[in-house]
């Protein structure tokens, strides 16, 4: 490659990298400086933690975060259980109607629960589950993506291994639990990280189905907190944003490699 093209390519790569973290960089800038410096950038601007204090006072972040953690955990635990059983059946059992069952499952990959907010809201209100953790979780408790991912993984387990386990007297659920689940550990990790980051960030359905602080997750809380009507300034909003994304961001930075590898792993299947 001619050298100037090489330089241009490298320059674009770094420029794009800076652009991509710019919102986060700005959030850090505004959050740690007094409001006067939110829209002007100067190296001599004093540092402060005041914005975090007022953000924390103006919105029940503690409760929002608790709600998000409970909802995300509820969904993940249910998904892991439900998807393991279905994934195993679809991968290893030869039963009547298997193709049909798989087709039913795969529908959800296209028709995501977000699209069906109108009817699902009616269902949840009939069940009396508006503004509850279960209500936020219900449409996501089974994941077509998880079932498909586990099915692909379980399919690769050698038949001899299963036969040997059966000779040892394992069958049914204990066979799944003792042989298949441990072998699929990377897939479980991958799916869990994808699921956690999806539901930590999910907004539209929780917005529809929650009314109060009792069940409202961070995303919905932040949308209310940041609304222009609430009259909060940029610095406080930035501090709030950092509080909201903090835990997931910290988790991501520590387990960066696993995160990226998990997303890759989930993508190749």
């Amino acid at each position, binding site marked *: 490659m001619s050298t100037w093209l090489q330089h241009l*390519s490298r320059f674009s*790569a770094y420029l*794009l*990298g800076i652009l*991509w*973290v*710019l*919102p*986060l960089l*700005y959030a850090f800038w505004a959050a740690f400086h007094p409001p006067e410096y939110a*829209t002007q950038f100067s190296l001599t601007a004093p540092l402060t933690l005041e914005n975090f204090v007022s953000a924390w006072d103006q919105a029940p972040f503690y409760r929002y975060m608790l709600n998000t953690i409970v909802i995300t955990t509820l969904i993940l635990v249910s998904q892991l259980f*439900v998807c393991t*059983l*279905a994934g*195993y*059946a679809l991968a290893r*059992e*030869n*039963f009547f109607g*298997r193709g049909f*069952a798989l087709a*039913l*499952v795969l*529908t*959800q990959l296209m*028709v995501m*629960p*977000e*699209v*069906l*907010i*109108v*009817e699902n809201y*009616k*269902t949840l209100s009939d069940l009396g589950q508006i503004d509850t953790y279960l209500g936020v979780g219900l*449409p996501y*408790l*089974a994941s077509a993506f998880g079932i498909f991912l586990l099915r692909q993984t379980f399919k690769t387990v050698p038949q001899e291994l299963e036969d040997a386990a059966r000779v040892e007297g394992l069958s*049914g659920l204990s066979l799944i639990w003792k042989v298949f689940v441990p072998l699929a550990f990377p897939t479980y990790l991958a799916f869990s990280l994808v699921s956690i*980051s999806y539901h930590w*960030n999910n*907004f*539209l359905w929780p917005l*529809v189905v929650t009314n109060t602080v009792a069940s409202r997750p961070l995303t*919905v809380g*932040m*949308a209310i907190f*940041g609304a222009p009507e609430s009259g909060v300034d*940029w610095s406080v*909003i930035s501090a*709030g944003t950092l509080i909201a*994304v903090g835990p*997931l961001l910290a988790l*991501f930075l520590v387990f960066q490699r696993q*995160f*990226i590898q998990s*997303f*890759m792993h989930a*993508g*190749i299947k």
Partner: protein
Amino acid sequence: MNRRLNLKAWLLMLPALSLLIAFTHWPTLKTFWRSATWAKSDVAPSQFVGLENYGLLIEDPVFWKVIENNFWYALGTVPTSIALAIAMALWVNGKIKHKGLLRLAYFTPTILPMITVANIWLFFYSPDIGLFDQLLRAVGIDGPNWLGDPDTALGSLMAMTIWKEAGFFMIFYLAALQTLSPELYDAAKVEGAGPWRIFRRITFPLLMPTTLFVLINALLNAFKLVDHLFILTKGGPNNASNLLLYYIYETAFSFLDSYYAATLTVVMLVALALIALAQMLLFDRKIHYR
């Protein structure tokens, strides 16, 4: 024995299928039914009205505006995100310095909640004091009111969507690039092929399956990613940046018309079915190709 095996398998499927049927298949059918009914209020009994709601749809200028916007939104975000994702993957997979840091930077938007970061983008886009207008002023240009002007509102949303999804798609290309054999490239270099030729004749064709996969996901996102509308534009000004899913939400939960919202949802379901169909056809061709 056979019957017992069937029973056991269906029992294993039972939790997943009952949840999926209750929250995917049954509501899909109910959406179609509701789109053919109408009632004065939510408590009044509904009556069958046939295609009347679809008549309203055809005469609703907002509906057509939303469809048009969704078309531009898809056209504006899908190819750009894919092109950027390929470029990012090639850079990060190449010999550039600070690879790990760069990969981290590209991937970060994927794990940030769209709704929360939209607050930051709102500042970037604000007139005069916003970052973009400040930067433009530094080079002597009077920046527009990005979100307040009907000409730039949808484009501003697209920019944030591309920012959000390009790094996510990069991951799939990165995974694919790592499976390509180095011998192929050595051979091409021996033949004296330049980098652009190598990309066009070797890398790009070999990445085709990934591109198809990413294409389908990007198309789905074009219908699904509306979180930032809630913060940035609320579909405005005057529906200039409204998208189908946001309009469904508005109709159902602000205008409280679940019958018309169901009718709009049917349009969405048809669009998704078309994407599914395209996927099946494309992936069939991929298999033939191999």
